[in-house]
């Protein structure tokens, strides 16, 4: 009894202290956990729900490594190695059947590669498909909206499928609708929308979950020139306001030229040239002279022999010659023609465009139905490369 009392008195301050300490520790841990949660929340920004994997490699938002896909032995995509920089608009240009959509389908995890691998936003497209899917937005080549729902309902559905927090959905959808200028039609059924309006809604829809990369597969296919122009404006606007990387495929030269920071020209499943549009045009060494005359083959042979101009082609009754300085070469061609009794009907000088670039690299026009073929030395060079 006495002992216990002494013990109690002697140790009570200590016990008291210990209890204090304990509660202090408890309080500390509570505060610490609270702060940690705060930190976690602030790290997990609502505007950036999907963080990338490796921060140092994130300048390359897309990397493919020998990416290959074949269909019954036919190589649709053949050992593709491309990297897309974060924040750029990357254009994949090529004729129908070049493998553009197959490439996009693989990057979007819709199609498994036959061999090779690729990473999107740092995630492997096969092993981490769900993470990749959360990181990307897609606008398909064909329409993919529910025409029996309203525009707004389509957007809500997308937001729910991509796990956008319920509290943010209304705000984001309102902003997107404003961006694509459909806010006044948002509550109408999609079936009452025009083709261009549907396309705009699809563009907007791809952005609702704030993707890192937006894939646009032939975004203006089948639209009239005015609407195409409109959509181009939106795409540039989207890139500016949302700070995302855009990968677009197209077989329209002007589209690739006007939108892309860099262009990969694709043919037979391979990238045959990859650079900025101006640099690609530079590789052409100059201008195109277009001549209509009574004997094109003879003239073609003549300019090759006497003037060393071998980059010639004959399309639909027009001889096209690619030269360095068109203005100075033109008079000499006229002279040569007259000396050899060839009558020139018309002669025209044209600055190079991407169509010429494509012709230069592939030896054919981008539209396969055109009978344009390369003649002369450049054709031979191309064939050697193949």
């Amino acid at each position, binding site marked *: 009894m006495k002992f216990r009392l002494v013990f109690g008195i002697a140790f009570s301050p200590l016990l008291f202290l210990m209890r204090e300490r304990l509660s202090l520790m408890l309080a500390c841990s509570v505060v610490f956990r609270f702060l940690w949660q705060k930190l976690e929340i602030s790290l997990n920004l609502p505007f950036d729900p999907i963080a990338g994997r490796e921060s140092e490699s994130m300048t390359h938002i897309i990397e493919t490594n020998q990416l290959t896909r074949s269909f019954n032995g036919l190589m649709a995509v053949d050992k593709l190695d491309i990297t897309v920089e974060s924040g750029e608009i990357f254009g994949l240009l090529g004729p129908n059947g070049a493998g553009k959509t197959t490439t996009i389908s693989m990057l979007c995890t819709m199609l498994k590669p036959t061999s090779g691998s690729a990473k999107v936003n740092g995630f492997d497209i096969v092993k981490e498909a*769900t993470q990749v899917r959360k990181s990307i937005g897609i606008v398909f080549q064909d329409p993919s*909206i*529910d025409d029996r729902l309203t525009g707004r309902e389509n957007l809500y559905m*997308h937001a729910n499928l991509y796990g956008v927090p319920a509290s943010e959905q209304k705000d984001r959808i309102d902003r997107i609708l404003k961006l694509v200028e459909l806010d006044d039609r948002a509550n109408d059924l999609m079936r009452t929308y025009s083709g261009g309006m549907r396309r705009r809604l699809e563009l907007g829809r791809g952005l609702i979950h704030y993707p890192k990369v937006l894939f646009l597969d032939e975004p203006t296919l089948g639209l009239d020139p005015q609407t195409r122009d409109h959509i181009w404006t939106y795409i540039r606007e989207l890139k500016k306001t949302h700070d995302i990387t855009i990968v677009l495929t197209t077989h329209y030269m002007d589209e690739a030229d006007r939108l892309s920071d860099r262009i990969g020209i694709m043919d037979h499943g391979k990238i045959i040239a990859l650079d900025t549009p101006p640099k690609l045009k530079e590789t052409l060494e100059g201008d195109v002279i277009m001549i209509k005359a009574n004997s094109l083959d003879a003239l073609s042979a003549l300019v090759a022999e006497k003037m060393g101009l071998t980059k010639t082609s004959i399309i639909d009754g027009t001889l096209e010659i690619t030269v360095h300085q068109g203005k100075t070469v033109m008079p000499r061609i006229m002279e040569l023609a007259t000396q050899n009794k060839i009558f020139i009907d018309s002669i025209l000088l044209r600055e190079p465009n991407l169509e010429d670039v494509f012709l230069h690299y592939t030896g054919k026009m981008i539209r396969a139905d055109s009978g344009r073929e390369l003649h002369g030395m450049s054709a031979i060079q191309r064939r050697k490369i193949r």
Partner: protein
Amino acid sequence: MTELRGFYTLWLREVKRYLRDRTRIVSSFFQPLLWLVVFGLGLGSIVRVAVPGLSYQQLIFPGIIGQTLLFTSMFMGISVIWDRDFGFLKEVLVAPVSRFTLFLGKMIGDSTDALIQGIIVFVLGIVLGIGIDPVTFLAALPVMLLITFGLVSIGLTIASFMGSLESFGAIQSFINLPLFFLSGALFPIPNLPDWLQVAAKVNPMSYGVDALKTIILGGAWQPLQLQPLFVDLAVVGVFDLIMIVIGTWAFTRMK
């Protein structure tokens, strides 16, 4: 959580689409009406019902509900083909939700639509003077829903393999009518010849119809019962589970 929200939005879509389709709802009155009035009264005028105290019309009423559920549920598979044709399927397939969620959302959404069709037939029966008390009605609802799960799953599975509307329609009538005729919807199974009884007993639909008859017709049906109610429900439940597994697999391989 994402999966749950995905499920909800897919369910909501199916129900919204259905409720907006006025023609489908109005036309859904028609076929059951023909069966109940023309077939029920017509055949009822020449057959003597083996169940005391029940008219032929009353006897087949639960069967006609079952038939409506069967036909509507199987038909729902068409939405997969529509979605593919109109491109919407791609949007759903690339979304970061599992195929199980995708299947379940669509399946339960379609089941809800089929259930609404079934309720319409119920109301039709009440209007035609087939005495049903509210308790019976409420007891029948969960059973009806249970029946639709498996049937919708069959429809969705078949549709996910079919390339076109035409081939889906052809397969449909190939499956629908045998399932319907062999379900005991129009006649009690125990009175059938042995070999036909065997065919009816392997038909999962028989147990759904039997359960509906037990609930709606009550004691009068007891002697002709195929199985006790809980066995019926167990068979239907197991069938549902199997079909959901198969359906999820079918959706997983869909591209």
